[in-house]
């Protein structure tokens, strides 16, 4: 019985590790210049739950990937982007890493 529980725990943990990352993608109005948008990257990168940040000027979106086991607060993300001088018009959660989103944007 104990052996089965341990196996289930190990398999469950492995499944969680393999699961795609929790990433919040924000659509941002006003984001036209990399120099001016650097505040978004800097402020979001300081969030304890943020593992990676990606600013996509062409699509006007910002992606924040959560650290494993941590949750991102969408209200905080929205406030940080506002404090950087921009307006968030849409927030959504996706199961992709920032690296994957970056690779997709380069295509």
């Amino acid at each position: 019985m104990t052996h089965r529980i341990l196996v289930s725990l190990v398999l469950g943990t492995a499944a969680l590790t393999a699961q795609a990352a929790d990433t919040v993608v924000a659509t941002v109005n006003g984001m036209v210049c990399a120099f001016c948008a650097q505040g978004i990257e800097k402020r979001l990168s300081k969030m304890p739950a943020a593992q990676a940040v990606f600013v996509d000027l062409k699509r006007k979106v910002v992606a924040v990937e959560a650290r494993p086991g941590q949750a991102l607060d969408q209200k905080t993300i929205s406030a940080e982007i506002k404090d950087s001088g921009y307006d968030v018009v849409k927030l959504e959660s996706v199961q992709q890493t920032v690296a994957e989103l970056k690779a997709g944007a380069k295509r």
Partner: protein
Amino acid sequence: MTRSWWLWAALSLATHGAAAAPIGFKDSWMLMTDLGPNWQEAWINHAFTARDAVGAGGVRMKSDDGLRRRTLVEATYTRLLQRWNLPHAQANVWLFAGAGGVRGNDFDGTRFAVAPGLQVDYETTRVYLAATARLYRAKDLNHDFGSVRAGFSFYEVDYDEVQPWLVVEARRMRGLSDKVEITPMLRLIHSRFFVEAGVNNSRQLRANLMYTF
């Protein structure tokens, strides 16, 4: 260029003329310089909100004939009066307020000076337009300043790439020059730096730099 020229630029620590936006994001510091033989300007400011910044800076200028010189050192307050964040553009109205002292080589002592100003700008990833007006006033002195800027980027880039722009500025300052200074400049924008360099219609080299930290 003399050693003292560089020393002054280094010590006097953003210029409204060069700025895409004259303040950074909340809690940031921004350093801006506008350097040329007849006009050297440098500011540093701290944005304590997303719309307000306080700072200090200075302008050193001389007339075209080199006979009159002015040095202004000022405390500044910059306020974003209005911003329009659009899907593919941003437009702003900025207020500048400065107060300090001005010295000159044709009068004695330091005179109290005020320097209020206004800037409007519109920018997309491919187009930049801006107009700035600033009054430089002290007792018996009027060096009001006006500039317009227009530019375009050669192509769009990703956030972490350098984007080249061609920007043309026309500016004039009352009481020091009778002509409009026109400067085509190459602007390079990156997420970490903003630099411009060009040669004006008097064949003088100009350079602008902005850095946020």
